[in-house]
């Protein structure tokens, strides 16, 4: 398995599928501590990404991610739109014109995505945001790439699992950024919707390579 443009397109396609499938669930999560739109926004955004992919098929993984970034930025809105837009743009930046991404490349992409989100949103780990999915994912991907062999799947899996664990770990947290922060202590006991959608995205990256 290599992470080429076909993988990238499949990844984005699986992201769109995941958002459609989990639309209601993400709306429910956002209903509890936000404004009930996260699932709708992500679904709308990734459907638009599919349309764009069909219109102008990209030549490289980096081009695919850049296309996703621009589309999410212009179609998602809310907090998630600019944050995911920046994440995908920074990740695309690490890929340049490369035809294939290796384990270290994936780790670099996830790190860049995390850095982009932090740069835009100024959230720290523990603030109960999507950073709580991307930060452990970036760390796990790097650790897997550093220690593992040339097998890229294990790096994808490491990132996805860490993101999933990170999302679950937001449950008890009190939000300090984003709309959930208005709830103060009442935000505890609910999963952060952005962390949940982030885990879906990183899990889709695994699925695309399977």
């Amino acid at each position: 398995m290599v992470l080429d443009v076909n993988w990238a397109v499949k990844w984005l396609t699986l992201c769109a599928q995941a958002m459609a499938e989990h639309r209601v669930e993400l709306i429910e999560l956002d209903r509890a501590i936000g404004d009930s739109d996260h699932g709708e926004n992500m679904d709308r955004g990734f459907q638009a990404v599919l349309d764009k992919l069909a219109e102008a098929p990209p030549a490289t993984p980096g081009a695919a991610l850049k296309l996703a970034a621009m589309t999410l930025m212009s179609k998602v809105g809310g907090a998630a739109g600019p944050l995911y837009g920046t994440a995908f743009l920074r990740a695309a930046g690490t890929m340049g014109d490369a035809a294939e991404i290796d384990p270290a490349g994936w780790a670099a992409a996830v790190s860049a995505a995390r850095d982009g989100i932090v740069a835009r949103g100024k959230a720290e780990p523990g603030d109960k945001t999507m950073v709580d999915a991307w930060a452990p994912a970036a760390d796990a991907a790097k650790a897997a790439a550093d220690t593992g062999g040339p097998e890229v799947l294990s790096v994808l899996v490491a990132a996805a699992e860490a993101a999933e664990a990170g999302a679950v770990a937001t449950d008890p947290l009190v939000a300090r950024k984003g709309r959930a922060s208005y709830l103060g202590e009442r935000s505890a006991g609910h999963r952060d919707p952005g962390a949940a959608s982030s885990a879906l995205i990183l899990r889709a990256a695994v699925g695309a390579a399977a």
Partner: protein
Amino acid sequence: MKKLINDPKSVVDESVQGFGLAHADLVTVSTDPTFIRRLDAPVSGKVALVSGGGSGHEPLHAGFVGKGMLDAAVPGAVFTSPTPDQILPATLAVDSGAGVVHIVKNYTGDVLNFETAAELAEAEGISIRTVLVNDDVAVEDSLYTAGRRGVGGTVLVEKIAGAAAERGDDLDTVASTASRVNANVRSMGVALSACTVPHAGTPSFDLAEDEVEIGIGIHGEPGRHRIPLESADAITDRLLEPVLSDLGISRGDRVLLFVNGMGGTPLSELYIVYRRAAQVLADRGAVVERSLVGNYITALEMQGCSISVLRLDDELTELWDAPVHTAALRWGA
């Protein structure tokens, strides 16, 4: 969910189209991307005001486009901030060369999307000033949080900054007047019922028949705490007290009192709240010089209200009184 809509996905587009049809003497509606602009924008030599945010708060912001207020409004999906690819063309469409003030309610999404649009506009040579509105005392203001939300004060900022722009103030002056309004206004809201986002289909929170939610925002997000239903006077006191103490209102202060409906509350109830609030202010020796009562910044069909108090001075009062001609606020024209 029971709504007068055709399809949850087309609510914003169709509503904006209807708005454009009903107010063709005031505005032009652009579609793809969607924004509403003043018919005669760009107004030569005038600083332009652009605001926007999620839909569902009508008449905010489209209802405030027109002479003496906004030059453009950029509506996002319901409760979802608009995107830079809407905000940028709206900004370009109304700039006369005198620069553009972005009036942004302080929500992460709005801030980030307007930030990006402002960068892109600056790159095209347009001078932008961004004024954040954050008047909601229900939210703790701290460096470690997203900060206070922009709520009722937004209407007052848009009216007064709009008047400053209309009389010919320059970019920095308009922006600093807008900031001055923001610095002098505080708000707090209550919900008696939740609202239902069309695409979600279920109420934004669950509230028992005998409970109200104190400190709600305008997005159907739950508030700070829940209390048993009380009398209108008691609730008014609860909302007003933090507003007045945060503003430091004292004897002799001149104020504008704004009782805003969240969309599903009869006007008669808003006047009951106004009555109490005016009494409390009088008791404190403050002078209510201007007032506004009605549904101006709403959360769909939510039942409830917010109270905003703006400390006035001669200039702010003069700018408040200046002519305005928009779909939702009109006088002197």
